[in-house]
Every structure is written in structure tokens, then in C-alpha cells.
């Protein structure tokens, strides 16, 4: 039986790990390679790096981080943040990333998803969707949550599947950094709209939120940052908890 995945996400800036509350108030807290190794040794099903300030700053640091991590961690590594072009994707994959997540570029130029999934295979193309509730629908935000594209999240998700995305990483902008739980309504609506796996993100504060993301949100995988990063829970504890709630996990 296929297991639900737990994916710790490390926000990386200038080659160092940070985690912001709603993408601001950053705290520096460690070397991403060591952190990733701790997670993979602790049973993380995948590792995710998000280069949060990549759109504005020199990106070369992330290539070095990815290269060093891929020589030490032998679970899948996803890298996102500032991925704009086929060339960016090519460089990250060559450094040892297994998947890349594309956010702003997929909104501005959906062809990049079509072209990259054809060139590298859908298995390594994750489309990251940052969505915020507006009335009774959700809208897509870009540039790290700063710009409202006005696009409807559900329609956009379906379009990205058609364009060749292998997975969707869905973040609720309303919940990100709040620790009050995933927007399971958003997750389940997108999940039922598409036939590709959904990774839920944004808002995890405790282990029940992970359970809800899978049971109520219909997510194939749950992504979390701060609950693991600040040592509140280990990945192993999270897995044992999910297991106790009847969710299939790799233990």
C-alpha cells in the first residue's frame, strides 16, 4: 500500500536555514545540509528546500546547498523558489535535486510547465500554488505571496495538471505561519479536481493538523516546517502519531 508522505521543508536564504512567519521576521537557524541529513536519518520521506528570497537575490548559494545535500541524503529532494526557466530547472537537477517546484513562473508563463515536463518528465515537475481565500473562492498569489494574480485556484490547479505537472504543492496563504492547521477545505477541493498527488502546506502547528491534511484534505503528502524545525516534534513522532490514527506511513 502506498504510504502518505511527511515532508519537512527548510526555508533557505543565502545558503542558511530560516523560517518566517508569513514570509517575514526571519530567524537564522542552521546549515541546510546538516538539517536535511538529520531529517532523512529521522525518517523524512522527502526533503524540500524553499529558496525564499531567490527572486530578488543571488541564487548561486542554493546550487551549492543542493549539491552538498544530494551527496548525503538519499531520499527525494525537492527545490523551489525563484525557479523561472528551463535553464534554472536543468541546473538544479544537475546539482542533484530530484524535483523542482515552480510557482510564479508557472502563473506568468504556463508554457514553462509544458516544456519542462516534456523535457525532464512530469515526475520532477511540482507546481507550487499559493492560494488565498477571497469570498467563496481561492485566488492564486505569486512572488512569495505578494501579488494577487486573480486566477481561480481550482481552475488553475486543473490547468497545471493538463500542462504536465506531476504533483501540486498547495499552500494556503491565510494559514501559512499561523500554526492553526491546513486549509483542508482548499486542499480537498483541489484534490478532488485533479488526478495527480497533492502536497498540503501552510499552517501546521500540531500533529493533528497533519492527520487532518490527509484525512480531511485528501492530501497524498503533508509538508511542514516550523513544527519540525524548532524541535517541537520529530519526524518519527509525527509518523507514529499518524500510524496511531490509522494513516499508512513508512515506519
Amino acid at each position, binding site marked *: 500500500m*502506498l504510504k502518505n508522505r511527511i515532508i519537512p521543508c527548510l526555508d533557505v536564504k543565502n545558503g542558511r536555514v530560516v523560517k518566517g512567519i508569513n514570509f517575514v521576521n526571519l530567524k537564522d537557524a542552521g546549515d541546510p545540509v546538516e538539517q536535511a541529513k538529520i531529517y532523512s536519518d529521522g525518517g523524512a520521506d522527502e526533503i524540500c528546500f524553499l529558496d525564499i528570497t531567490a527572486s530578488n537575490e543571488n541564487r548561486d548559494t542554493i546550487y551549492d546547498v543542493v549539491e552538498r545535500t544530494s551527496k548525503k541524503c538519499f*531520499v527525494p529532494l525537492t527545490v523551489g523558489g525563484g525557479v523561472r526557466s528551463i535553464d534554472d530547472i536543468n541546473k538544479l*537537477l544537475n*546539482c*542533484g535535486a*530530484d524535483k523542482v517546484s515552480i510557482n510564479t513562473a508557472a502563473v506568468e508563463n504556463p508554457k514553462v510547465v509544458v516544456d519542462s515536463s516534456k523535457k*525532464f518528465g512530469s*515526475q520532477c515537475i511540482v507546481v507550487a500554488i499559493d492560494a488565498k481565500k477571497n469570498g467563496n473562492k481561492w485566488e492564486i498569489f505569486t512572488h512569495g505571496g505578494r501579488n494577487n494574480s486573480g486566477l481561480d485556484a481550482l481552475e488553475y490547479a486543473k490547468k497545471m495538471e493538463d500542462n504536465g505537472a506531476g504533483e501540486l504543492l498547495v499552500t494556503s496563504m491565510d494559514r501559512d505561519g499561523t500554526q492553526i492547521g491546513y486549509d483542508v477545505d482548499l486542499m480537498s477541493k483541489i484534490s478532488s479536481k485533479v488526478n495527480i498527488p497533492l502536497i498540503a502546506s501552510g499552517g501546521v502547528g500540531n500533529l493533528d493538523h497533519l492527520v487532518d491534511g490527509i484525512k480531511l484534505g485528501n492530501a497524498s503528502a503533508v509538508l511542514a516546517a516550523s513544527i519540525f524545525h524548532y524541535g517541537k516534534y520529530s519526524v518519527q513522532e509525527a509518523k507514529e502519531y499518524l500510524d496511531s490514527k490509522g494513516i499508512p506511513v513508512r515506519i
Partner: protein
Amino acid sequence: MKVTIVDYNSGNISSVINSFKEVAQDKVNIEVTADLKKITSSDKVVLPGQGSFKSCVDALNKINGLTEALTEFAISNKKPLLGICVGLQMFADIGYEETETKGLGWISGKVLKIDNQNGKYKLPHIGWNQINIIKQSKIFENIENNSHMYFVHSYEFIPNDKNVISATTDYSSNIVCSVEKENIFGTQFHPEKSDKLGLNIIDNFLNI
């Protein structure tokens, strides 16, 4: 010993390279090349594959003499070869991803899309799934039945001769996830991404 990872522009093979180098350390010489002479003079060959069946076959065919060199290595000389993911799928006679495409024909059979049972099963089949070992393969030394391996694929290999199947995994149906036919080995899952157990499988292959 010299082991060659075939670099034929089939997508991202850095994880395969990293994992083999990690296991090999100084004991085994890992080469990454499409050089025909180097391939045929190797002791073992690893055939990775990412993307579609068609794109991988096309990439193999683009390099003059590569298919013949691999066939000489695996079929005439019967030296150990490990296919990973689409690398395994290409052992088949024919694949149906994108369009009907002829495979290497080393293990008779075809490659079809996994039946998602009208959307009940998400595709690609991504993540950790347990393998059901049905034949003791040399690459499963010290690997327990029901071990977890990492999968990413939407197509499955259906061999005509079921005796070549060494493991299956349960997703929609019993999907063939490992084959062994004499000197030819293949895994649908990614040992290079399957943590310690995956490295163990790579070690087993290097020790054949």
C-alpha cells in the same frame, strides 16, 4: 571492478551517480559515460531512465551504436546490467507512452499505463510503497519482504514470462516492481532514492 552508469541524456541521473559513488567509495570505479568501448569493457552497467518511454528510447537511439553495445553487453556477453525505472521498462518489446514505441526486447512484454480505476488512484504513483518479494533475487540480499521503496511512475512493465518477476507492489493492482532474468536486473522503484535499503540494493548489485 569497473561499473558504468550509462549517460545518454535521459534526464536527471545525478542522484543515481551520487548513490553509486556513496556505496562504491574506493572499492569500485564508477564511470558515467555513453562511450561504447567503455561500456562493453565494463564489468557491470547501470541503465537509468527518466521521462517517458519514448523519450528514453529516442535518447538511446540518438547515440550511434549504443543500443547494439548494450545488447552485446547484456545479451551476448551476459554481464550484469541493472535498469532503473524507465531503464527497466525499456527491457520490454514495446511501450505505449506518448505513442507506440519499440523497446530493447530483452525481456518479452509490454509497458502500459497503470489502471487508475476511474480516478480512484492518483497518477503518477509517487511515494513509498512496500515491495512483495516473490522470488529471491540477488539484489534483495538482506532486504526483508515488505520493505519500503520509493516510486515515481505512471506506467508498468508487464512481462510475458511471469518467472522473471522478483517483486511486485500493490497500487491499483500488483505492479511488477523488480525483475531478474539471468544477468539482467531491473527495478521500477528508485534504489538511489530509497534511503538505506536502496543503498543496500545498490551494494548487492555491485557485489554480484
